């Protein structure tokens, strides 16, 4: 005998109408969510600490690199100045009187020009270093 629609409905409603999670489900879920919240907060704090440490390491490395490059430039600069002084001292006795007169006349300008050129080397080096770094961070 074929059951009526209402009988079938009644049985299906009885079978599935009360379908729900077991007792204590909400409490278990909330406990898991609380644990998740704590884990998440702890993970965020750990991540922030790691990022801060990495940022500090990067800053220290950059500073060390900067110091090294400045030292190289100053060494190079001092070398150039020393060579210039040695060259002038070596060739001075062989310079003609006319050239010596010219030197006496323009010594202030020539010295200033030499000083500017020597000082320009580290400045140029600093500019090159800054340009390299700004390109590197792009």
């Amino acid at each position, binding site marked *: 005998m074929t*059951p009526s629609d209402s009988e079938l409905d009644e049985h299906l409603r009885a079978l599935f109408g009360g379908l729900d*999670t077991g007792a204590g489900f909400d409490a278990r879920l909330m406990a898991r969510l609380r644990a998740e919240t704590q884990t998440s907060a702890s993970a965020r704090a750990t991540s922030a600490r790691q990022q801060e440490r990495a940022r500090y390491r990067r800053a220290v490395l950059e500073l060390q690199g900067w110091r090294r490059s400045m030292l190289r430039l100053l060494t190079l600069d001092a070398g150039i100045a020393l060579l210039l002084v040695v060259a002038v001292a070596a060739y001075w006795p062989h310079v003609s009187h006319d050239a010596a007169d010219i030197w006496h006349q323009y010594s202030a300008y020539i010295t200033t020009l030499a000083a500017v050129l020597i000082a320009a080397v580290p400045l140029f080096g600093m500019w090159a270093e800054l340009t390299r770094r700004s390109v590197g961070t792009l």
Partner: protein
Amino acid sequence: MLTDARVMELVRAERRDEAIALVVPAFRRRVFGLAYSFLRDREAAEDVTQEVFIKIWRALPGFDGRASLSTWIYTIARHTSLSALRARRPQASLSDPEVLAAVEATNPVPSDDAIADRAAILRLVDQLPTKQRQVVMLFYMESQSHEEVAAMLAMPVGTVKTLLHRARARLSASAGMLGAIA
């Protein structure tokens, strides 16, 4: 009261815990039903339901309201259920004694005849094609709302009605042949 706007407002105010406290009671039963319709195992469905709400809690900051909250939750529930289903073959059957006992436990104490009838019906539901079985379970769980079942299974309402009609015809015929329902 739970509305999509209220949930988004709480999430924006970084009050995710309050948002999930609103979401859980509103969707717990439906998420569980959906998981159960896939897994046919009460314990596994409860595990999946928990997993779904954990995922929702994690993903809430990214909920932008483009889809409705219910659509978003059902999508997470379906994907999680399918992943769990793939991970745990072979599956349980609705007509397993444990499942029968669990279903009976959710209902008022029935007579012996009613228990026998329901057990027979449950076995018949178990033999339905997957989609028909899911539609039948969710339709009778969800106060017989075609629209809600359609939203849960991401199907057009017409498809739900068709599947339900076929399932009922099949159940009715099978029950008649077996003489399961007097």
